[in-house]
């Protein structure tokens, strides 16, 4: 049984994983204190002849300490998490000239629209490929996520990316891969009988390899459109 997170292949993912492990250690320490503490008390204060329980209704000092320590910890986690959240989700954090790719989720496929030869999404040279999401490593990518029917969710575990695709909305997200490789989009919101199998191929290319793949695709799209 493997207790590790998958390969971390994105810039945002590094921060998410760091935060995950930080919380893991904080809660881990608290976990040990609480559980060992309880077990110790259960043994130490088991009923024995001649020992009466201590009659006390509490201790204000203890209350203050065990209110303040969790509160301060939570505030700290909140601030740290907030900074990372803003870096990932805030409109200001979106990179300016990232390639924009449209992804439309539908029961039970992902239709990926590439911006065509002019690299601008939304005009005539765009072309759509079913279930293949390819982009270059080391460059930020913006995805404009939509849905045709019900709520789906665009989840690529290795990139630590997840965003619900909501019909009637176009939701932008951005990310930047740090490693080449082949991954998958997994749908992460129950969407019907095919939900368990709503996957697409993700290919992160070296920059040159991506350019050739892309040129090939735009060429093929132009040829098809000409017919």
């Amino acid at each position, binding site marked *: 049984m493997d207790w590790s997170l998958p390969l971390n292949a994105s810039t945002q993912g590094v921060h998410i994983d760091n935060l995950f492990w930080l919380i893991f250690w904080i809660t881990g320490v608290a976990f040990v204190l609480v559980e060992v503490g309880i077990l110790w008390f259960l043994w130490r204060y088991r009923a024995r002849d001649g020992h009466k329980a201590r*009659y006390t*209704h509490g201790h204000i000092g203890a209350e203050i300490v065990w209110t303040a320590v969790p509160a301060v910890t939570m505030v700290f986690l909140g601030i740290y998490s907030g900074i990372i959240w803003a870096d990932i989700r805030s409109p200001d954090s979106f990179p300016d000239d990232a390639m924009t790719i449209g992804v439309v989720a539908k029961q039970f496929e992902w239709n990926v629209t590439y911006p065509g030869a002019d690299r601008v999404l939304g005009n005539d040279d765009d072309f759509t490929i079913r279930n293949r999401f390819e982009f270059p490593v080391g460059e930020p990518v913006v995805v404009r996520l939509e849905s045709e029917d019900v709520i789906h969710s665009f989840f690529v575990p290795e990139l630590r990316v997840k965003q619900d695709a909501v019909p009637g909305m176009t939701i932008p997200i951005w990310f930047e891969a740090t490693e080449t490789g082949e*991954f998958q989009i997994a749908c992460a919101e129950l969407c019907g009988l095919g939900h368990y199998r709503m996957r697409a191929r993700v290919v992160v290319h070296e920059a040159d390899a991506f350019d050739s793949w892309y040129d090939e695709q735009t060429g093929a799209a132009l040829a098809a459109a000409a017919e």
Partner: protein
Amino acid sequence: MATMASEPTGIPVRVEEHPQSFIRKYIFSTDHKVIGIQFLFTCLFFLLIGGLLAVMLRFQLGFPGAALPGGDLLPDTMAPDGIILPEFYNSLVTMHGTFMVFFAIMPLLVGVYANYLIPVQIGTHDMAFPRLNMISYWMFLVSGLVMLSSFWVIGGASAAGWTQYAPLSASPEASGVSTGQILWILSIAIFGFSSLLGSINYITTVINQRAPGMTWFRLPLVIWALFITAILGLLAIPVLTAALIMLLFDQTLGTTFFLPTEGGQPLLWQHLFWFFGHPEVYILILPAMGFVSEIISNGSRKPIFGYKSMVFAIIAIAFLGFIVWGHHMFQSGMNPALGMSFMISTLIIAVPSAIKVFNWMGTIWGGSIRFHTPMLFAVGFVMLFAIGGFSGIFMASSPVDIYIHDTYFIVAHIHYVLFGGSLFAIYGAIYYWFPKMFGRLINETAGRIHFFLTFVLFNLVFFPMHGLGMEGMMRRIYDPSQYEHLADIQDTNTLITWAAIGLFISGLYFGVLFFWSLFRGKPAPDNPWEATTMEWTLPSPPQHGNWKELPTVYHGPFEYSHPDVEKDWLSQNERPDVVSPAHH
């Protein structure tokens, strides 16, 4: 013939003294104790259903493609050749959550114990509105049967998750379920009304009918918990009901509240549902915390540590519970700025829960601990709820939630708080108040076996799910092997399934023990646990109307091991020569 007994507030309560027919006494009864017991039997049945549904869905995950034992009893639309279809799997997941949340855990906590305990712990004859109380039970039963019937209609039972996100839940074309969805909506609407009737009763009774001397800060923590829970229900359930009506209209009348055409908003469903849903989960835990406080105090032979802090923590959890709902929606597409605000309120709500855990530890510390079965379950609650609370911190952090949202990490968290938390507390409460309810004892050794089996198997089922979530296993998927990143989790899923089958069997064992004890348990004394709250001064079981003359309360609810008193407990209405004032 009626007896008027006057209350501190002067409100008369009539006590029925004429003999009643069997039907009026046991079936259509207005006696809060009978109603509580009716809830208990009904809920144990629904708990069984919920568990069965879980075993079925676990079977598919543990042994994918294998024929379910008894599966050929199921029609081909669910499981041809006994092999579960994906659409039926989605139904199983949906209905497991639905039955457990609405028809097992919530009514076991509230329908059973608010009804049973409030009058006998605060010192009154019955609820403020006994007939409304009776209606509340029968509405509950009807709602449960309506939900159960949805398996039998064409298209089957709802399959959009217990959270019913629109448009999937509003569109028979997308979900494959039409009549079943309508039945789900109707059932929960009826359930909601039943709950509201209950809340009205509990709130009014606690405010108006406390015995003389029972000031607010002398109330047992069970009563505080149930009182605050009732307020939560009163405020949250109407929101759900409104949302359900809109969903029903979207599906059947062509409205578009939650559909994106013509100005509708899928996210509106989520906001409405979770505005209810988050207070709902505090409804599912606060009474449990109340039970645990009482049982731990009793088992440790010590007053609860920090009574006032515990009360303020309950109130804080309830209040904060209304402003955290968006943490279920971090990845939903709502404005990311809301992600910030909901994250902050969610992290803050961890604090009162932490306070409670430390106070329970403080109660055990320095005690003289008796390891009776209720105490085992209560301490088990604290240990397991703590784990659930810790896992909650991961998902409270919205960036981490990007990864773990809709994975088994969430499933682990839910079950540590709902099962390791609420259900353990419910088991503890059942063992604890069984002698009072039925006049019989459950054998201690048999109860301990149930505890150990449940504790071990529960952890075997749900602890590994944290790991599954870390590996990225999504929720509600029929066949994880379809994804490369989940290629080697089958062994874990199979282990979990075996443990789940064991856990189910241990639940059956408890059922047998429960019913056996009803008929063959040793007769119970009035106060087998030597407890301080006032129900233990009544006979086991108490008579109709509870007291002939209402008691007077002299001190706080957990006066154990008072140094000036020889026996190690003092009932709330016992007047010793030396009485400890009720401040802490």
